[in-house]
């Protein structure tokens, strides 16, 4: 079927396109303009036409997301006609699709819990999904590094974990920090040693950076640094960036590290000020690096992280006063409920810093919009955030309503920049798609997957981005006037990577000894999803 999306303002920064024109679609792909009469015409007059949004870091599946729902049953309630971003997978898929998002990645899939995570991802309708396999605190990897085995062995173990868990990429979360926590540590930084292995966090990071490069994983190593949320955390991010030594690296929820200590000698007691300019400057100097923001928004949420050392340290800030730390088979996870106080000084400053980072960005394709859902707040805040980025006046009104400290300790108030629609598309489409190595999305050039979001152009950008006029997934209309009209199921993207047979045998023996269950117990076979084709293969870089 040939479809013409007619007369919209088509915004595709990857083609330098921002003008009223048509987008043509056939067989689920964008095609060149056709002379043939279309079988269907979608009137996009008065609308903005963009590629479907791509999410790189949102906690939408996995054991810790499940635990958060059980810890806070009141947070996950679905009311009639009010789907909840903390609720079911169905609600999550619906809410993303309504905003024009068509792909979303869960960044924290522990290999020991891959099957449950993948079962859950498969129950998120409407979107294509993917999971990043978490390594860096697992005993088998730490043993390899401690015993100074070859880089090839580390590479083979990473490949095996990606293949077994059917992941799209690799993430490391405070490398070694969870293990150190289990041995009593409550502070841990890049050059601290994991006590039981005599390895620094830096050594583990290095091993994983090399392995991801050697395997040609399209998505660079996705890094959650140490010292998240602490005054002086900017040092951790910059040190980690320098440690990458030019290798590709992605920093997760960088806002939570953009906190310069006010009192350098007593960083934990003097409070913090924005380090957004420092991080923007470092990003400009390091074309190998990308980051996503982890924007804070106000209200009740649950923080979810595999960084159990930080979650344990943050337990006393839990609101309401209940929390979970699970010392799991590698990281485990921590759930700490948190309320970002509307007009609270700290929350307001965090809010300002996130916006400042995006507005100072030297390259919006490398500073991707996330709220680290649900850690900074729900992903449903994106429309409002985009509005504030695009509208200096609205931003000034917002800042004026916050405590003075937000303006005093950040540079937000002085920034004149207003994001263009092309820059919005870079922040939410082309940037994240390039970062994930998904060449078939994030743009509208011929050959692109026909994932398209059509928004009514209106001054109220919040309203515009919250409920798309039309959303197409693989060429099929799934949203009309902000409502889901077709419950398609999407695919889960998994990287095609060959696992080494020798490492598979060795790992099978290791797992048998440790769990009384071999490698097959940890697999995610197609047969776990009867009567459905869930997975779609993504190739490694050539």
């Amino acid at each position, binding site marked *: 079927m040939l479809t013409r999306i007619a007369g919209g303002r088509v915004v595709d920064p990857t083609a330098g396109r921002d003008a009223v024109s048509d987008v043509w679609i056939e067989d689920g792909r964008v095609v060149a303009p056709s002379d043939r009469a279309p079988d269907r015409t979608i009137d996009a007059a008065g609308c903005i036409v963009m590629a479907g949004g791509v999410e790189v870091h949102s906690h939408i599946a996995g054991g810790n997301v*499940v635990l958060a729902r059980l810890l806070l049953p009141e947070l996950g309630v679905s009311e009639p006609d009010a789907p909840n971003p903390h609720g079911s997978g169905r609600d999550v898929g619906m809410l993303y699709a309504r905003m024009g998002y068509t792909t979303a990645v869960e960044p924290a899939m522990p290999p020991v819990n891959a099957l449950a995570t993948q079962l859950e991802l498969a129950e998120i309708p409407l979107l294509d999904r993917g999971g990043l396999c978490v390594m860096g605190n697992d005993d088998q990897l730490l043993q390899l590094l401690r015993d100074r085995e070859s880089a090839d062995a580390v590479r083979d173990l990473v490949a095996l974990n990606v293949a077994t868990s059917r992941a799209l990429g690799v993430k490391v979360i405070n490398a070694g920090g969870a293990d150190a926590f289990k041995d009593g540590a409550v502070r841990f930084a890049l050059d601290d040693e994991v006590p039981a292995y005599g390895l620094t966090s830096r050594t583990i990071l290095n091993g994983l950076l090399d392995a991801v490069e050697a395997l040609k994983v399209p998505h660079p190593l996705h890094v959650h640094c140490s010292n998240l949320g602490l005054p002086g955390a900017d040092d951790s991010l910059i040190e980690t960036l320098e440690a990458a030594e030019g290798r590709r690296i992605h920093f997760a929820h960088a806002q939570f590290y953009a906190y310069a200590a006010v009192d350098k000698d007593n960083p934990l007691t003097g409070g913090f000020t924005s380090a957004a300019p420092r991080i923007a400057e470092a990003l400009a100097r390091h074309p190998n690096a990308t980051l996503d923001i982890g924007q804070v928004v106000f209200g009740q949420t649950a923080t979810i992280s595999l960084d159990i050392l930080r979650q344990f340290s943050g337990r006393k800030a839990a609101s309401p006063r209940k929390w979970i730390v699970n010392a799991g*088979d590698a990281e485990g996870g921590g759930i700490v409920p948190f309320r970002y106080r509307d007009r609270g000084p700290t929350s307001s400053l965090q809010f300002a810093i996130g916006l400042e980072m995006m507005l100072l960005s030297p390259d919006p394709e490398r500073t991707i919009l996330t709220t680290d859902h649900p850690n900074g707040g729900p992903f449903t805040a994106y429309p409002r955030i985009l509005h504030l980025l695009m509208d200096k006046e609205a931003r000034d009104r917002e800042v004026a309503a916050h405590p003075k400290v937000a303006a005093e300790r950040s540079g937000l108030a002085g920034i004149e920049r207003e994001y263009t629609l092309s820059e919005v598309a870079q922040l939410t489409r082309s940037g994240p798609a390039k970062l994930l190595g998904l060449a078939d999305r994030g743009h509208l050039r011929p050959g692109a997957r026909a994932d398209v979001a059509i928004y009514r152009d209106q001054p109220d950008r919040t309203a515009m981005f919250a409920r798309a006029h039309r959303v197409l997934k693989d060429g099929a209309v799934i949203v009309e006037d902000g409502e889901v009209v077709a419950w398609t199921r999407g695919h889960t993207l998994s990287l095609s990577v060959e696992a080494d047979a020798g490492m598979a045998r060795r790992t099978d023996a290791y797992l048998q000894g*440790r769990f009384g269950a071999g490698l097959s117990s940890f697999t995610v*076979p197609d047969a776990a*999803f009867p009567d459905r084709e869930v997975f779609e293969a993504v190739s490694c870089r050539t």
Partner: protein
Amino acid sequence: MTAWIDGQAVERGTAVAAAASLLAEAHGPVIAGLCAEAAAVQAAYDLARAIGASLDPAAGAGLYADLGALASGGAMTTTPAEARGRADLVLVLGAAPWASGLPGDLAVEAPVRGRAAGQPRALLALGGPGDGGVRHVAYPAGEAGLPADIGLLRGLVAGRIAGPHPLADLASRLRGALYGVVVYDPSEIGALAAEMLNGLVKDLNEVTRCFALPLGDPHQGRAVTQVAAWSTGQGPRVGFGRGRPEHDPWRFDAARQAESGEIDAALWLASLPAPLPAWTRRVPTVALLGAPTGDEARVVIGVGVPGEAFGAALWHPRRAAIAWQEAARQEAPRQEAARGAGAPQPDVLPSAAAILADLQARLAAFPVSNPERSASC
């Protein structure tokens, strides 16, 4: 035979049609048991959403002892493999954990990972049955019972109880351990004691590391909890009667609903063994069973046993995770062949997930009020 109506063997298709009619005519159906592979549990939640049923796993009561404590105060937990690999002290509470075999394994091993590696492991028991086959130090339960002992222990650990006390030594051992693990069965100790235990463990982490290790039920309850959470945003006991998931552990207790006459039809799902509740004889019930005899319910349909007849995602108690379990090796076909070509082919049983999907498709064709479409009732 693999399908029955009122105890009489019938073709499977006839039984599935009868099951669909039984559920279609119901005003308040429940889908219970849920002792099955993840795909079947998922299909059960999908069916419940479509027909406005409520759900309750066989594991319900014990599961909610832990879920209640979790929602009240949270927890600090670890896994069986971490207990085996790291713990220098394991405290086993009550009698139930001894039936799992885990204490025996923990007794013969010592920590191999982390800062306690190379040290011996102390196995302690409070209120246990006194298993003479496993070397351990036994502390008798007090007269007020195990829940009270846990409270006393918490007070002792926090230094809130002065003077000599029979459990003072146990408290001091817990404080002195490098990686303590407290093993318990939530259905044995109950929600209040589980909450107290979580408090004890959290207190201990102010000075050292200590984690709770709840043992799972044998009826897939912890896998059901996960499927329920991603399907509904809530724990397992939910009702879709108003077209959206409503979570209420009391209201959607299937036994209570049967007792009070709130349900008029049921589907009992147990592709793995689970005790059949007596109310399935009173309430018109469809039973999907891995080991049927035919007279368990009004309509009985035999289904394949997951992890035997076919590979399946099942709760793995020693991994404390949903794990893939391959089909058992098929020895039977060779025996059949040995008996000669004339032997009848064994009937390949369908999976429960396939039957549930079939039921959902059939029920979509019935002219009943669909709560997804008309939620106003």
